[in-house]
């Protein structure tokens, strides 16, 4: 059963940076690394700063983990697992994401 939804075109993503998409009422941060041909989708809500801002964070890698740093208080979240590097008890929802025929598709159901 396909739960994939197209949310925008690949061109709408910001290279080496993030945008936010509204998918089934959820705010999802989408990150795109063109060099590595990688896309990531995690919740846009920063539980520490309590604001929908993670798509506006800087992305990079820390000890081999691909992360986004919250623009509010700079905690790092692993883009593959959603786990906060500074406090492993905190973990963000991570969503499946793929590129199909130039469209960015998200699956919000497990």
């Amino acid at each position, binding site marked *: 059963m396909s739960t994939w939804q197209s*949310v*925008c075109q690949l061109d*709408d*993503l*910001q*290279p*080496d*940076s993030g*945008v*936010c*998409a*509204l*998918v089934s009422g959820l*705010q999802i941060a*989408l990150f795109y*690394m063109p060099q*590595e041909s990688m896309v990531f989708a995690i919740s846009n*809500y920063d539980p520490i*700063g*309590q*604001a*929908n*801002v993670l798509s*506006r*964070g*800087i*992305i*990079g*890698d*820390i*000890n081999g983990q*691909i*992360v986004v*740093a919250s*623009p*509010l208080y*700079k905690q*790092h979240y692993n883009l593959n697992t959603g786990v906060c590097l500074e406090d492993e008890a905190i973990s963000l929802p991570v969503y499946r994401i793929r590129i199909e025929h130039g469209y960015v598709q998200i699956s919000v159901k497990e």
Partner: protein
Amino acid sequence: MNIKKTLVVIGNGMVGQHFLVNLVNNPIKEDYNIITFCEEPRAAYDRVHLSAFFSGKTAEDLSLVEPGFFEQHGITIYMGDKAAKICRDSKTVTSEKGHSIRYDKLVLATGSFPFVPPVPGHDRAQCLVYRTIEDLEAMQAAAKTGKVGVVVGGGLLGLEAANALKDLGLQTHVVEFAPRLMAVQLDDAGGAMLRTKIEALGVVVHTGKNTSLITDGEQCVNKMCFADGEELETDIVLFSAGIRPRDDIARDCALEVGPRGGIVINNQCQTSDPNIYAIGECALWNGMIYGLVAPGYAMARTVVADLAGNEASFTGADMSTKLKLMGVDVASIGDAHAKTPGALVYTYQNGDTAVYKRLVVSQDKKHLLGAVLVGDASGYGTLLQYCLNGIELPENPDALILPSRSDESVGLGPDALPASAQICSCYDVTKGEICKAIDAGCTTLDGLKSETKAATGCGGCAALLKSVLNSELSKQGYEVNTDICEHFAYTRQDLYTLIRVEEIKTFADLLARHGKGKGCEICKPTIGSILASCWNDYILKTEHTPLQDTNDTYLANMQKDGTYSVVPRIAGGEISPDMLIALGQVGKKYKLYTKITGGQRVDLFGARVDQLPPIWKELIDAGFESGHAYGKSLRTVKSCVGSTWCRYGVDDSVGLAIELENRYKGLRSPHKIKFAVSGCTRECAEAQGKDVGIIATENGWNLYVCGNGGMKPRHADLFATGLDKATLIQYIDRFLSFYVRSADRLQRTSVWMENMEGGLDYLKSVVIEDKLGLCEQLEQQMQTVIDTYQCEWKTTIEDESKLKRFRHFVNSEQTDDNVVFVEERGQIRPADEQERKHFKLVEVA
């Protein structure tokens, strides 16, 4: 019953206070009620660094007494009350205000007074001395109306005082009776070299001059007449012709005093009455008065030990000194005049760089007896250790003063010093004690200073302390990692150099050449900032956008709820009513919370990302441009209203502020930069709390640098005085370029300067004297930034592709429902958690 004895200390100067501090740290304090008389209206302060008062330090900054010290240790202090009389029969001290205290033990720490030669007219108006903070205040007051100042006395203190007069903007002269400057410490050639250096700074030196009369001047308040018939007009006469011990109170109670003054003491610092001690500059030991603080401190410690019943004696002190006089390094060690029989002398003189060095060596060439250094005192620490510890000299002792032509170092490494070697003579701290503190976990210079007190007196041993620390740390296998992050094994300064030299224009290129991994939120903005400082591209160019912090990406300041604030530039804080109305209209239209900032502009809060472009469109149409409040860049140049309107204004501070703000706007730097310009010394713009502060004086602009407000306030340092506008701007160009080039990331100018080896003097040598030969380049680099300025908001709203980013959702026109405002005092504010829950319930219902 154990009744406490009473100990009275007369005098709360540096030595008196040092005595009290040592006493309360000794168990013997329990035996005594401690009472002290302090004639001045304030407790002990740092007289050694008195001239710092004119470069911005306050009386509080100079204080040597921790807040609450007297209360905490149960010490009674009679402030502003002079001890007038001692009655040895009844063992009582009586003060001018009538306090009469019976003592068991008495310590005299009355200090000294400045010697004023009995020249006719010495007591005329504006004939001053240089000893107390009140004296400095009198100098300051006199300098307000005067133009010329003369210091009588070319010794150590006299030159310090001359520096103070120069800092006050006066045309400064030094008049010395002896044929050379610093006659006690220097020989003829050293004195001559010092004179050359000081005259190059614009101070006129007159040696071999005997003042015979001070009388009415024609152009100035006073006129000095010399024995040789010459005359000198001056407004201020400052006597600094040596000190005399204050021994009146001892004479009056028939304690033994020396034929030329001074209270005679033995090796335990006892006077001729064993219950009375004398310490510091009032005491005469072995026919000598010590006019330095370190021997006074040693005497104070001796007395504490003696009171505690420990064996201790004062057996003279090393009179070596190192200091910086008007930016000139001067040092004198031991037998500088080669009075020891058979002593050999080596001298090195370089007329080009004005450096003079002289070594005095024992007949067998094995030991260093003394030395004189002028113009370059970097060898002081090493030479002093040779001299004090009797370390055997190398085969060719002259190698110690000859400039090294190779990498071979002739310095005495810290490892060569015995544990007993005294590193800090002010606080008598040995190398052994320092190593012990390092072993116990003290691994920073600051930590070591507060733990051991080393280098907190005159500061002359700071470099040696640092090398001991570094050597011990490296022995323990510590390695200080200065890499900016895991992606670049470089400091910010290294990265700046790489980008400049290799003309690197993008992060990707730098990463490929010198880094690894993908980067992070540390290196990306840092490199984005360096690229902007060097090449000044539009920061939202596709290749630069991912490097920027969110504030730079959206050209606005993110607030706690994810909305942004908007700050247009209001240069110098000057704004027309129409512009103010336009600003108000935008605020009203978009329902923004509006607040006046500390930098004299207006901040509009609560804008969503999608509102930023239309808000800026309206602002730009009204004539505003970006205020760069979001960037690590120049923020504002605050100003007072200046001479245009103010009754007291000396120059047009607003005009200058606007010009400077427009000159440096958009400059990306390691951290934010704040300026201010005051139109007179009343300093209404608070320029001395800014990175760059400018104050108008009758003689031109005075430039202050490296001040800071915020978490760790720092008073700015006076950098240059009496500047015309062209020179002022030239210095600021160089200063800012040098800061951008060499500071660490997120390092404000204050910390940058404090961590710089050589500090303010080094900075002056780079910016004013062009020591590194960099100035032309620094000015050029600044000019490039100025020439390529653009309003980032104007560029952005004119570029459709850049506006794509300014929406909350990439796939919807909806806005963030988590952003909720409530009203307070007639404006919006973000809802708190409780209010937000309530709001959502209401909305659902």
